[in-house]
């Protein structure tokens, strides 16, 4: 019997040794799963797949992209929130499932249920009109809309989506009323705008560029505080005295909330470095977007302030949970 108890003791020591070795294990030591909550092929998917590829040599591990579409991004997001907080399952997404959808859909996660890693891209929403529109700068645009409440229609990428909320946030602040017509993305919005079925194009910058170049459209406002280099004539919100109300389309990396701080730091450093790489910057610039790479704290601050501001905007325009 004494032999047996010695054996047990030995085994216990061995176990403790193993578990402490596991705790000190270098992170990451196996492939990381990056969950993207959209079908493949969209803007978020394309940008983050590119980023995943760039971050692999930095982390020294494979980063496997897994698409989990559904529920406007909330299905995949829920999966990340509920994953084991070991840093091997993380999420890459755009703002809607974090700061917009939770206000209208019964999402199984709250705003505090995940850790913000880093914001990787940003691109403003642009508002453009046909050449015949009676104003040709940002101030005139707002003035014209203010004089004719409810007269003008603007196309956007879906009710409660980035374009509508970014626009309504500014409009509410400036006392402007325009009617939002939801479409299923920038392509449909562009078609309705070119055909004259809506007055204002609201959406990302690249699709409208050919029409700005041939002078059939003019862009008068972007929803970022600063102006944008691709459409220099469009006013930034700072020009309109509403720089606090900026909402842009951004993409970022999140992780389960209980992720240990040292692993969060490893991820933040690697993804921010990848986002700032020349290759990613160039790729994003071609798509009319800006590469970021913020600190976890900055990213968290952005999410929280946007979550609160958009919650108010959505309540004001009647978008709430039933």
């Amino acid at each position: 019997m004494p032999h047996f108890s010695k054996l047990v003791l030995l085994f216990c020591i061995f176990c403790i040794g193993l578990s402490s070795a596991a705790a000190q294990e270098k992170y990451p030591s196996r492939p990381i799963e990056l969950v993207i909550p959209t079908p493949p092929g969209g803007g978020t998917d394309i940008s983050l797949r590119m980023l995943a590829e760039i971050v692999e040599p930095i982390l020294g591990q494979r980063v496997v992209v897994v698409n989990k579409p559904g529920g406007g991004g909330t299905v995949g997001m829920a999966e990340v929130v509920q994953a084991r907080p070991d840093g091997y399952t993380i999420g890459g997404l755009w703002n809607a499932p974090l700061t917009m959808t939770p206000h209208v859909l019964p999402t199984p996660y709250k705003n505090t249920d995940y850790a913000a890693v880093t914001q990787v891209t940003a691109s403003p929403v642009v508002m453009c009109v046909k050449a015949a529109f009676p104003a040709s700068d940002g101030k005139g645009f707002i003035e014209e809309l203010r004089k004719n409440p409810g007269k003008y229609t603007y196309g956007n990428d879906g009710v409660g989506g980035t374009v509508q909320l970014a626009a309504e946030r500014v409009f509410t602040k400036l006392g402007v009323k325009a009617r939002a017509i939801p479409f299923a993305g920038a392509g449909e919005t562009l078609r309705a705008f070119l055909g004259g079925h809506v007055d204002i194009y609201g959406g990302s910058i690249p699709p409208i560029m050919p029409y700005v170049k041939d002078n059939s459209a003019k862009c008068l406002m972007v929803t970022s505080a600063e102006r944008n280099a691709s459409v220099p004539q469009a006013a930034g919100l700072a020009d309109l005295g509403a720089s606090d109300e900026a909402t842009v389309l951004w993409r970022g990396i999140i992780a389960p909330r209980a992720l240990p701080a040292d692993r969060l730091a490893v991820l933040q450093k690697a993804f921010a470095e990848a986002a700032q790489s020349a290759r990613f910057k160039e790729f994003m610039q071609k798509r009319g977007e800006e590469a970021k790479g913020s600190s976890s704290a900055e990213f968290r601050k952005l999410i929280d302030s946007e979550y609160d501001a958009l919650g108010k905007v959505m309540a004001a325009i009647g978008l709430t949970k039933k």
Partner: protein
Amino acid sequence: MYCVIGCLWGTIVGVLPGLGPLAGLTLLLPITYYLEPTAAIVMLAGIFYGAMYGGSTTSILVRIPGEAASIMTAIDGHEMARKGRAGPALVVAAIGSFIGGTVSVVGLMLFAPPLAQLMLQIGPAAEFGLMLLALVVLCFASGGPALKTFAMVVAGLLVATVGVDMITAHPRFTFGSLHLVNGISFVAMALGMFGVSEILINLEDIAKVKVIKPTLRSLMPRRQDLKDSAPAIGRGTVIGFSFGFIPGISHVISTFVSYAVERKLSRQPETFGTGRIEAVAGPETANNATTGSAMIPLLVLGIPAIPATAILLAALQIHGVQPGPQMLTEHPQMFWGLIASMYIGNLVLLFFNLPLVGLFVNLLRIPYAYLAPSILLVSIIGIYSVSGNALDILIMALSGVVGYVLRKAKFDPAPLLLAVVLGDRLEVSLRRALLISQGDWWALLQGAMSKIFLGAVLLLVLLQSAAWLLGFRRKP
């Protein structure tokens, strides 16, 4: 070269049940980062055509439409296969696809700019008219009694209401499930209603399912087949091309419009649904003819008209090309490369698919006891790999049972499925139009295009009612 790879991959993807052009394109999109831009686009375009070709194969052989555009092909195509005439059906589908595809490229080169302008005229109000017209045509397209078809269409429209309301963002009929927020997966439903229900029906009397031994002679279409299908191919080309530039789901609409036209023009409309070669040739030509014209809004305006071209747009943007009015002057090599790839792609696919017909038909030699489980397995893997959502497999199984019951009761599930596709756009375009007009219903009649579409609806309904009243109705 990349075009050939693309076509090959496209055909494979099209043939696998559950994977359509969309899945094929998105799976290969990441690879194109590493290719030279023109090569990348040409390869993706090849996948697009290839999948449109390949989709007909499973429809004909095992009654599994890979995507919405091959539903109509499945109806008569599979009946032909059951009669041991899978060979001619596949050959005619390939020839029709080739002619439709090639003619539409020529059309694209000649008429792209004016057609693009015409497309812009179609706003939400006119789109509503168009969808209504499509629904009415759909009611007449199917072979069964009008009342049963109508019931199926209504059921399809009801299914289409599941998901988030486009205008108020409230979830409808989702029972709190986030998986249903985007609506019921169409591919899963189609696989269930057609593929699974077919297997269930065959299981009833497995001894009856005879293994068809194709001979070389039975592979080739007879002269009469070619004679019968030639006019259908011609009409399918025109229908497909003229519908292609209409945004949204043109590739689907064109197939059942073509089917309806063939049935109306036929001297024996009652034999449609029992394996008529025209009913395979027409729709199959039409859906490939739309591939050319679907490129028009993409290249000329930078607007993706159907989901597959949206992926092509994404690929162009990855390489820093924004299609639009300046594409021809700024990126001529890309523009003409694409056009050239469409010619080559169609040729490659024809030479590819004709020899493969023999191989595919031999699949039917496999005893059904082995074939059926493999079909099920591949379908399940196919759906799951696209959505990564187990609920879709459940939907497929349930639709299979529903489809079985419907077919036992002599209801045709095809109008139901097509109505699901139409219903979504019908509702959204109507509500969009009313939002723009601030609730004024007369706005639906504004604009020349709306008047034409709604006029056609009225005319069709009146003609049909008059025919009923006067007792001219043909015995179904």
